[in-house]
């Protein structure tokens, strides 16, 4: 489903260029649960932004469902994000002063067709993450764990092909971390593709496939072995 070939990403500021990703190759099949590990500054988030069509690589090819994403225009990328991807971020990125329900409904506002049962779908998504009694709460009235669960419900509302999570437990206590990981496991069992970017071993070992980013390069074979040792 996801095919990345020789991707490079270099940030330029004036005359200074900083290479972040170097010749990254990756293929993810439908239904996989993949963790991308690495220490801070190794380019994990950059890779996830590229995989989620939020950013473009400096060079290389990124195919999603057989389509060369690097050739798509901005509007098509927006539609792709809306239909195919669900995002979960470390800092939740919920709209402030907005109810949990309205936050979950947000992707549907930008969908090509607004479903007639939008509210029911949003409530159902919130129920799936155990927040059926928090629909009317404003985002800032919820705990960190609850906010992240709202973000997961928002990621699920459009029934996306892939859930992309960037350090999803980075701001959570251990109880909330367990709850979130439990939700990811459940979603994976339902057949959803999940890509988690993390530096946390506990989070990474939940995945069935672990990759490691070192100095902008991706290594796969020895990552799980290293973790298990």
């Amino acid at each position, binding site marked *: 489903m996801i095919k990345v070939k020789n991707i490079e990403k270099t940030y330029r500021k004036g005359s200074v260029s900083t290479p972040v990703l170097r010749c990254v190759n990756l293929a993810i099949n439908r239904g996989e649960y993949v963790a991308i590990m690495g220490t801070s500054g190794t380019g994990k988030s950059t890779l996830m932004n590229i995989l989620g069509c*939020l950013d473009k690589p400096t060079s290389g090819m990124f195919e999603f469902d057989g389509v060369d994403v690097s050739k798509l225009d901005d509007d098509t990328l927006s539609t792709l994000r809306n239909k195919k991807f669900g995002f979960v971020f470390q800092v939740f990125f919920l709209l402030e002063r907005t109810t949990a329900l309205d936050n979950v409904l947000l*992707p549907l506002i930008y969908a090509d067709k607004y479903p007639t049962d939008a509210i029911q779908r949003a409530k159902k998504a919130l129920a799936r993450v155990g927040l059926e009694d928090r629909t009317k709460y404003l985002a800032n009235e919820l705990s960190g764990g609850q906010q992240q669960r709202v973000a997961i419900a928002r990621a699920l509302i*459009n029934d996306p092909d892939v859930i992309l999570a960037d350090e999803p437990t980075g701001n959570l206590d251990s109880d909330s971390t367990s709850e979130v990981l439990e939700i990811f496991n459940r979603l994976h069992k339902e057949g959803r593709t999940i890509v988690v970017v993390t530096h946390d071993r506990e989070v990474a070992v939940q995945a069935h496939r672990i990759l490691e980013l070192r100095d902008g390069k991706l290594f796969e074979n020895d990552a799980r072995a290293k973790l298990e040792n």
Partner: protein
Amino acid sequence: MNRIVRIFKESCRVMGGNRLQVFIMMLGVAVGVTSLTMMICVSKGAYEQVMDTVNKQGPNLLQVRPGTDKQTGLSSGSREVVSLVEEDVDAILQHIGNIRAVSPVKDRKEIEVKYGAKFTLSRIFGVKPVWAQIRDFGPSKGEFISDEDVSFATRVCLVGQTVKKNLFGDTDPIGQTIQIKNVPFTVKGELQGKGISSAGRDRDDRIVIPITTYFRRLFRDVYLTQIVITIADISKMDETVEDVRALLRERHTIAPEEPDDFAMRTPQDLIDLASEASISLVNLLTGIAGFSLLVAGIVIMNIMLASISARRNEIGIRRAVGAKRSDILIQVMMECFLISIMGGMFGTILGYGGSIALSSLKVAASKVTPLAVAASIVSCSIISLVFGLYPARKASNQSPVDALRA
């Protein structure tokens, strides 16, 4: 549900969450629109008042005043410009064909008038009986001055409604004696109430006496302040004006190269003058209103720019979940538009209130007109388009990843 409707709802929801910012921006627009509305109402009111005066006078009134438009006539020692005399009136009546009526007018303001212990300063008009028809200013009670009153220069007068109120209160003035410059006059009648003139003068603060009495009993003078003429056939107005001009030039022995020592004014001149004054007023006030709207627009743009900067994450989230650049552009433009329109509505209400207040306080004539609503809708739409576009473009041009990183 249509995508635009969904985005519109989002705009409303976001505005509801930023009430203070929205209120400040609305206030900026409201101030501009208030001045715009008042400007339109006041200029419309002023113009209509002049038109009303012209309509009341009738389209066939010709006024002749001493001096040119630049007031270069002879001076009688005081600053008063002189050139017209009663004999000119007689000559016009004798020699000009297309005339229905003509009356000399002499008036002087702030003349002391007493009734018993009461005292007032009023404008005294010396006229002939026909003046009442020419100016449609007859008595509401009692009688107007008669030809005999003029022939014998009798000391009779008619009082305007303001004079009546000041001197007599609720007492019937007819038959009473008042002192004008210590000369006793018998009140023969009350003048109709006319209200405030387009020049802002109280037309009821006047006393009318026979012209002969004015010159023989009150002031030693011969010069008129005005000759008023009713033209018989209005289609020949221009020719009659030229005939009167030729006659007066001949009587005043004015050489061909010299300018007239009098000025003539037809109702059309008055309309032209009112239009000119109205245009100047509109230009001036449009400038003021335009400037305040410009300031309002800049306020909106600045607050919107600051708001966009503070809302980068929000824009990033929207872009991440699928909002296109155009969705963000439309949302920000809608917010600007709604703020402008709400501010405009608030301003229109304030402007109407202000105009009504100006009218009722007699500060200025104003007319509440739907034109002001149209003008405020148009100007608010322009403000939101012009000043909302830059912040909206700035918001929509952010890449999702940059916006989320902020």
